Structures are given as C-alpha cells and as structure tokens.
C-alpha cells in the first residue's frame, strides 16, 4: 500500500520531481536564482521572465512555466536580482532600486548562456509584461542564433507618468552625466514612486513605445505578442500601434494584463501553439 502511494505521488508530480533551482552569480555579491524545469531535449527551451519588480513566483509566469513544462518544454524561470542577492520577494516600488535595464539584460544573457551550457540550442524568450520588454531589450542587445523566437505576453513599454518623456530623459541624462548618486524618485510603470539613481532610471525610461516598436520590428527572431483586450495597464492605443507595425499578435478576448483566471489557459495555449509553429518551421 505504501509503495503504491509513493508511486502515485511520483506519478502525479512528474514535473516537480524534475524541478531544480539554479543559482548564478550575476555580479559581485549578487547571486540570482532561477527555476529550471527540464523538458524534452528535442524541444526548444523557454527562457521565461516575469514582470516588473516581480519574481518567477508571480502567478502568470509560474502557471505559464508549468504549462509549458507540462507540454514537454524545458523552462528556465529566473528571478532577476535587481541588485539584491538571492531575491525572493517582489521589490517594492519605493525600494532603493540598484538595478538598470543593462543589469537586467546582463542577467538575462547569463541565463541564456546557462541554457546553452545545458545543451539547449534553441531558446525561446517568453516574457510577461515588463519582462517581455526586458527580453526584447536583450534580444536587441544580444542577438543570438540560439534564440529562436520571442513571445511577449502583455508587452508594455516603460511607462512614465510625465507629460514629457524627453524632458525626463534629458534630466536624467544630465544627472547621470554629472555622476549624481543622489536618488531620484519618479513614476515608472505601475510604480508611482520609483526610487533609483538617475542613471539606472534612465535605462528604463529610454524604452518608450517608439523604441519598443522599433525593437519589435527589428527583432531577429519571430515575434508573437499575446495581448488581452482588457489590459488596462497598456498605454493608449498601444495595441493599435502594435497592429500598425504589423506585429504578430494574438488578442485574448477578455484577458487583462495578467491573463489570470481562465485566460491563463489561453496564454499557455497560444504560447504552445506558437512554439509548435516555431518547431514546425525550424529547419531540420
């Protein structure tokens, strides 16, 4: 009886049994971790990135990871350090943000490298919300043939709450140029008060819609955006703009920014569908 239950346990939790926490030293004193769900080797690995200031434990990302893994894909879900060793919690907006987009891109690069080191030669970048933007920024900064596709769920630009982004950029550039270390606080994305250094903040502020659209257009890999038509966090006419640049996009009716509820399955499904198309389209 006991052996039967153990077998049942193991059979019920096939994915969990193969989950592993990977830690990498991103920079001195900063160790980041990722959850690696090993899947079928013949399928591309997924580098799944969470949203702004979140962790891999965020429900949208965690569900997607399980769903992809259940479909046989290897999934690596890192938690960006954001300058905090072994970060485990979502970082508060008011925290002192000692991270920049460049740092994020560097960490993503390390994680992609890790996947490669694991023998994954096809890596699909899947991101949620700001994570999609960070992956897009990484894709722009480090195009790599092992990167096979980009799926961005609820892609969003770096939102600022200022009438003139250019003025903010200019200000931040000026402060950064002056090596000002005094913390500044501005609205960024959903954070009304985002405290950071001018330089670090600037890296995020530069990624407005235009730049995002340009990056999508210039993506070296296939792009698929999965957007919810009820996503209230998106900027005005953002989906319209995306359509305008003919970005491949799936609009999930009724889904919000987090694709929660029943729409989480839609997210998984659409992601899997695209992954299959990618596989089919991949040269043998």
């Amino acid at each position: 009886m006991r052996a039967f239950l153990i077998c049942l346990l193991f059979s019920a939790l096939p994915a969990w049994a193969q989950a592993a926490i990977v830690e990498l030293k991103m920079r001195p004193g900063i160790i980041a971790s990722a959850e690696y769900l090993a899947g079928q080797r013949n399928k591309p690995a997924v580098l799944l990135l969470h949203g702004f200031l979140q962790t891999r434990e965020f429900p949208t990302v965690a569900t997607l990871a399980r769903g992809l893994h259940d479909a046989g894909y290897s999934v690596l879900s890192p938690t960006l350090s954001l300058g905090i060793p072994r970060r485990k919690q979502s970082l508060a907006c008011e925290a002192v943000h000692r991270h920049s987009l460049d740092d994020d891109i560097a960490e993503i690069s390390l994680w992609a490298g890790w996947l490669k080191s694991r023998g994954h030669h096809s890596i699909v970048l899947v991101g949620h919300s700001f994570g999609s933007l960070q992956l897009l920024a990484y894709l722009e900064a480090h195009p790599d043939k092992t990167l096979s596709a980009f799926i961005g769920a609820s892609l969003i630009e770096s939102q600022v709450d200022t009438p003139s982004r250019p003025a903010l950029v200019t200000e931040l550039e000026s402060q950064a140029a002056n090596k000002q270390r005094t913390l500044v606080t501005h609205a960024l994305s959903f954070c009304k008060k985002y405290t950071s250094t001018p330089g670090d903040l600037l890296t995020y502020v530069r990624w407005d819609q235009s730049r995002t659209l340009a990056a999508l257009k210039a993506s070296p890999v296939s792009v698929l955006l999965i957007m919810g038509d009820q996503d209230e966090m998106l900027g005005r006419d953002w989906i319209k703009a995306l359509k305008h640049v003919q970005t491949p996009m799936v609009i999930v009716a009724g889904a919000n920014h987090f694709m929660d509820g029943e729409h989480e399955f839609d997210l998984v499904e659409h992601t899997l569908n695209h992954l299959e198309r990618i596989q089919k389209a991949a040269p043998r």
Partner: protein
Amino acid sequence: MKWLASISIKQIAFAFVIGLLLLVVLIGGFAVYQTRSVTRDLEHHRLDTARSELEVAVKRLLGRAEKQAISLAGWDETRQQLVLPEYYNYWRDQRVYESGMLTKLYERVALYTASGILLDSRPATHGMPASLPKLELPHQAYSWLVNEAGAIMFYHAFPIYGDDQRQSLLGYGLIQLDFMLALLHQETLRIADKTSLGLALKPGEALPASKLFSRLTFSAQPDPDQLMFQKILSRTLFALFVLLVTTAMLGLVAYNRLLVRPLRHLSQDIDAMQQGRFNANPSRSQPMRIIELENIRRSLYDYQLQLRELHGSLENQNREFHSQARQDALTGCHNRRAYEEDWERFRHDMQTTPQGGAFLLFDCDRFKTINDTYGHAKGDRVLTVIADALVMALRANDRLYRLGGDEFATFLSSTTPAQAKQIAQRCQSLIDASGFGELGIREPVSISIGIAFCPPDQLEHIDDLPKQADIAMYTAKQPGRNRIAVYGEDTERASQTLVASRETSALFQALATPGMIEMHYQPIHGLPGRQVDYYEALARIRYNGELIMPGAFLPVVSSRRLETEFDLAVLHQVDADLSSGQIPPGCGISINLSAQSVSHPEAVSRLLELSRHNARHPLMLEITETSLITQMVEVRTYLDLLRTIHYRIAMDDFGTGYSPLRYLVDLPVDVVKLDISLVNKLGQDDRASQVVADFARMMSDAGYALVAEGVETEAVLHKVESLGIAHVQGYLLGRPVPLSTLSAHHAGQVAEALARAV
C-alpha cells in the same frame, strides 16, 4: 453571697449597652482585621498579577523585537544594503519605516558587517554602537539591555544570511528601542503601575535580556474597586458604629424613660406603701407609655386607694379600739390602762423637760353606802356625774382616769402646788354643785382628793407620787379634814413613809419572796353530814417569824392596788402546796381571786397551769363580790374559759359588794357564798332574817349552790341546815389550819364525820 445581691434595672441597662458596644467594637475590630488581611492578600495577588502582566508584556515586547529581527533578516532590501550599502542611511532612516518593518520612532535598526562593524560611518549620530559586542553564540540572535544616561535601551542583534541554508552570513542587524518607552507604549498595563516601572541597572551596565525580569522593579496599581470597597466598608463600619452607639444611647434614654424611671417610681410607691406612707395624690401620677407598666401602675394605684381606705378604716378602728381600750365604759373617761400608759409618758416627759408635776387622786366618799342604798345603777350614774364634773374642772389638756371602783386620778404637768390645790378645789366645787338630787340621791355626794406634788428638782421621787397621793387621799378622808389633802403638808411625814409600815413591808417582801405567803386551809363542810368537801385557801404572811393576818395586809393590798400581784403570789403558793402532796387527795381547794385578776393574762395563765391539779383536787375560784367589775364581758369570757377546764366559780361575800344580782346575771357563777353579815342575820328572829332566808331559798331554787360563811353558833348552823344550804363554813366547825397540819386535821374531820354518821 454578695455578688448575688439585687442589682438595679439601670445597671442592667448600662451593662447591656456597654456589652453591646463592646461587642460592636469587637466585631468591628475583627471586621477591620479581616478586611485588612483580605486587602493584603488582594494586594499580594494584585502584585502577582502585575508581575504576570509585566512578564507577558516583556515577553511580548521581546517577541515582537524577535519577529522584527526575523522580518528584517529575511527582507530582500536588508540583504541589498549589506551587499550594496551605498544608500544604507536612506534605507535605515526611511525605508525600514515606510515599508512597515519598524513602526515606532523609538525603534531603530542598524546593520553591521559580518565582522560586526556598523555600516554607518557616523554611528554617533544615531546612538547605535559602532560595533557589536562579542557574542558567545555569534550566529544566533542575542538581546541585552543597557542603561544609557538613564534610559534603558534594549538591543536585539541578529544575523543576516544570504541563503536559506544560513551558510552565507552577510552581516548582522541590530534593533534598538527604548525599553521603558516601548513597554509602556506597546502595552496597556492595567494592573502594574506604569509610573513605578524601573529597571535596576547601573549606568553603562549591560544586562542580558534573559535576566531582565530579575531586575525589573514595579508595583501594582491600587485596585479602584478594592479602594472603593475599602472606603465603602470603612464608611459603613463607621456609620454602623455611630448608628449603633446612637441607637444604644437613644435606647438607653428610651429604656430609662419608659422602663427604668416608671419602675423606680413604682418601686418607690410600693416602698412607701410598705412603710405606711401613701402617695398624697396618686391620681396625679403620670400615665406610663408601656402598656404592661401602665397596667401595673393602675393596679397599684387602685390597690393604693384600697389600701389607703383600709388603712384609714383600720386607723379609725384602731383609734376607736385604742380609744375604747383606754376608755372607761361607764364614765367615758380614761381607764386604768390609759392611766398606766399615760403615766409612763408623763414620767418620761417630766424627766426630759423638768417641770413641776402633781398627782391628784379622787375617791368618792361613802360610795359603797350609796351603792348599797340606791343600787348599782344609781351608783353608776353617780360615778358618771362625778367623772363629768371632774373633767370639767380639769384643764383642757388634763386627763381624768378611772382607776377602779370609785377612784379617779389625774396628773398635772407644768403646775405648782397652789395650782394643783386650786384645781382640786374646783373639782370639789363642781362635785358639790352637781345635781345628784335629780338622781334621787338624798345624801350629799362628795369626793376626797389627795394631792402629791413633785418639784422639778426632785424628779427622782416622781414614782412616789401615786402612793403619796393615795396617802394624802386617805388623810383627806379623815374626819375634820376638808377632803383635800396635800401630801407633805397635811400628812405626817414621819409615820407615812412608804417603807416604814410593817404590814406594807411585809406585803411587799412577801410579793417578792416566794414562801413568805403561807396558805391556811379552812374546811367547808357539806350538810347535813358535816363532812369536809373542800378547803378554802386563806393567805397569811409569815414575816419575821410572826404571822400577819389578812385584815392587816389586805387594806394595803387594796390601797396599793396590788390585788393582781397578790393573787399571783397566792396562786403560786397554792400551786406549790398542791404539788407538795400534803393536801389529802380528793379534797377540793377554793382560791380567792379579785375580779381584776380574772382578766389579767398572767393570772389566767397561772390558773390554766394550776388546773392540772383538778383531777386530784377539784378547784374553785372565789370572786370577791366587793371588787367592782368594770370589764364585765372580758371577765365573763375568762370565767367561761376557766369553767371549761373544770374550775367552779363562786361569788364570795355575797351581799356586801356592788351589784350582787347583776354579777349573778352576767357571770357564770356556780356557788354563792353568803357573807357572814347575811348569815348572821339568819340567827335573828326578824324581818331581815326572813328576807335572807327567802333569798337563800330562792338562790337554792335557782340552782345555785350556797355556802354559808361565818357560822359561829349552833343556832345559825341549825338555821342554815333548815334552809337546805348545802355547805357551811365557820369557826364553829373548823378554823383555818396550816398545810403542815392539814392532813392530820382532815383525818380528824373524817373520823368525826364517820362518828356522827354512826
């Protein structure tokens, strides 16, 4: 036992009140003691509760600090600072508060490197130690307290790891808080007194948190409910005590008014009644408020009224009896009893208030003749007129006493001989002026008055006044006198001294000396046999070897009013003679007795005692007719008594006295002894003899036993025999003989009788 003596109701009330107050004090004291004991226990309990409350508060505070430490240690931003400490101050001063890690301004946190060095380069600005103290267990949290300039600061140091396995030590965190401030701010201490909280810590001294409680000083807040209770209890006890004292006092007052005072009044009234003092106006007694007491008061009042009426009635009766007992029934003046009482008082008054006093003795002249001539009824009227005249002649405060028969007396105080003589003359004048003729008395009625005077400087002789007056009175009766004589003026002193008379001396001595009176027994013969039926006891006085006959001393007896004393002496001697056994058995004895002695208690007692001889010697009492019986009822009563014990009563010297027929009617007489004067008439051949003989026959027919006295001739004897008189007495048949020869004489008489019978 003295302690069982009665106690007053007031003392009972006081004792009750005192006892009640003592009891209240004891109970109150016990209540106070118990209350204090309970209060102490409650205070101890409250202190324990305060201790427990503080323990919980301190534990909670320490626990909170521990939880904060755990939160801080696990917080990403904490690790961030330990790795990138560029903005540590911002994190320490702002982030930890705005993130909610620390909530109070008195809570501070500082980060230290893995080697225990403060991250902040300016530790002095924040009061945190620049480095952590060396810990015994460096990788474990540790708490301590320090007295920093009077403020007790609590520190909690905790390690911060970079990994979940606690392998990578990044550094330490240190939470600092003002312990007292935190404790008081955090906790609502209900029992422990916040103002009393303190920690016995010397300045600069560090105390491990584990020993915190041992140094904590505190006290418990007073329990307001307990204080209120104590206050209420104290007030209640005090009020109760005051109330009880007041009630006791009021009760005492009410008790005194409603119970004690009325009872005391009742008691006083009862005491007064017992002593014969009655409430002058009982109707004015205040009604009592207590129903039972009021009933008692009413009953007592009614009883008092009845008692007063009875007392008054008794007093009236007493006065009447006293008056009657002191009043002469015939004349209405005072009797001999009153005389004796008043004379004693007079003598005492004279002794206490020396003054001249006089004794007047009044005697009606030839009263016996008047009585014999006109009868006893007129004789009584004469005495009454004399008494009325004397009373009128005397002064208002003077009293007239009837001593007996026709003899009266009075004693005058505050007087002189001349005044006494004047009064005597006035008496005589009024007597002379009295209308005795209206009574049919043809002969002049006069009185002889003897006066004896005692000057104030010779009061030692006051007892001699009656005898002196008696002598003077006899002197006044002598022919040639004007019937008023003053002792000492009109009497011969030398021959009239009280103790010079031979007969008088002999009499007085015989009265005082048993055996001096010698009884001679004269036989009384029964007719016709002339046997001796009994003997009459006749008294003689043996004085200085000589025998004094009755003719010599009886006048002294009469004049000295010594009839009863003499009769008592005679009875004593007769008793002795009867007890001696020398009187032949079966012989009766006849004893002479004056009428006064019949009603004298001692004489009656002596007669009762003498009656024991009745079985061997029938006894008879001969009442001399010559004595005037004034208390007829009393004499009759005693004679009836004596007859019940077998005494026979004889009327002696019948025919010579005051009211012979009256005596026979009123008194229980068995034998009538015809006087010698009547018997001698029988020897004469005349009308008088016929009268006597007819009278004798009549008496004999009436059932009286007759005795003829003084038979001295054969002719009289024959006459007596012919009249059928049963007994005879006289020298013809036998003379009185002394006791010593009585037995022989009786034997001779018996022989003669036998010879005659043959």
